[in-house]
């Protein structure tokens, strides 16, 4: 389902990623680990199709679910619209169900600033999982959350993933273990 053969990725003269090969089948989970600045997010952006400026090849599903560390919600639209705008084909019922799944039932008319940080992340997760995409890419989705919220979000992610493949970018090996991910440690590739 996902096949990446990355020879090199440059930023100017600097090589930021090299010789990375990833193969992921349906339902498999992979965590990309490593310290800040090692190229985790760059690799995720390549996989999500946001950066095609690299040498190598990529075969990925057409539709990918993506979530960044920051919820990146449309602050000027309510929770329902935040899902509907990014998923125009989704019915109102499926949007309400998605909100129910992430514990935001009854919050569809709430604006992001009326939601707590945890609820905002849940809404971002709902947006990410709504379309039933085969591949889900999460960039530090549990960063800067307290322990209980982190646990809560991990369980929610695990439940929503079901049969889908996951690429998880994280600093925390614990996140990868909790979600049963294979590990690609980019720090091991540092010179």
């Amino acid at each position, binding site marked *: 389902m996902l096949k990446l053969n990355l020879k090199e990725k440059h930023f100017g003269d600097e090589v930021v990623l090299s010789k990375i090969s990833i193969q992921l089948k349906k339902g498999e989970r992979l965590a990309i680990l490593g310290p800040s600045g090692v190229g985790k997010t760059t690799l995720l*952006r390549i996989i*999500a*199709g*946001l950066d095609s400026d690299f040498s190598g090849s990529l075969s990925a599903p057409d*539709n*990918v679910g*993506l979530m*960044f560390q*920051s919820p*990146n919600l*449309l*602050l*000027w*639209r309510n929770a329902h619209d935040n899902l509907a*705008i*990014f*998923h*125009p084909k989704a019915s109102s019922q499926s949007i309400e169900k998605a909100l129910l799944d992430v514990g935001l039932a009854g919050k569809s008319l*709430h*604006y992001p*600033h*009326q939601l707590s940080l945890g609820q905002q992340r849940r809404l971002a997760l709902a947006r990410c999982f709504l*379309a039933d995409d085969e591949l889900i890419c999460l960039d530090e989705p549990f960063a800067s959350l307290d322990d209980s919220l982190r646990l809560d979000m991990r369980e929610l992610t695990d439940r929503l993933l079901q049969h889908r493949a996951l690429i998880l970018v994280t600093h925390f090996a614990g996140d990868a273990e909790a979600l049963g991910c294979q590990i690609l440690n980019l720090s091991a590739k540092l010179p």
Partner: protein
Amino acid sequence: MSRGTQIRLLSFTLLLIFWSSFAWYKADPQLLPSPLAVAAEVQSLIETGKLWPNLFATLQRVVFAFTLAMFIGCVLGYCMGRNANFNAWLDPWLIMFLNIPALIIIVLCLIWIGLNEIAVVTAVTLNKVPLVTTIIREGARNASTELRDLAKVYKLPRMAQVRHIILPELYPSIVGAARAGLSVIWKIVLVVEFLGGSSGRGIGLQIHTQFSVFNVTGVFAYAISFVAVIMLIEFALLQPLESRLNKWRGHA
């Protein structure tokens, strides 16, 4: 009546008191007429039918120049804010135009294009575009890159991106540029009319006429009439528009 409105009214009353006191102290209506004398002059201008055609002519120029400057400035500012190469190309031009005195652009437009409406609108627009461009560029620079990435990943059509992401992110900058623009544009229009005479109508031209006969009351009457119109636009149009665009913030 809200406390804010009460304070505004009180502040306006104080201004009138200061003005009246100073006019009374100077005791020279030819130099500084009282608010009552100016009000009487405004009434006379209305009754004789002199005010509206001039007001309308100036307002028309303001609207044309404002619309043109906002459109060009928004497009240029957005492109410069989101595209480093485009910004590198146009930034020296922007700095140059920001620093050319308004008077020079006005004089050159009047010489090159002639004493006509096109020269007036061109001069005002050229003076205003750099400011709008600068404000919108900053807004575009501060816009979220990740939201655009999400729009790309979720394959949002271009028009949906403009409607749901780009414009809402730029609204504060657009309203800020509009407000700053309006306050600058009408002053420049008056200067152009004052210098160029334009089509024979306009508040600036009338101020020129009043100035040449040293009728300070007339200068005040025309100027205050136009300030009143601009304030009406601010309170009746810009502020309601701004509160409508920021309606979501009030849902706390």
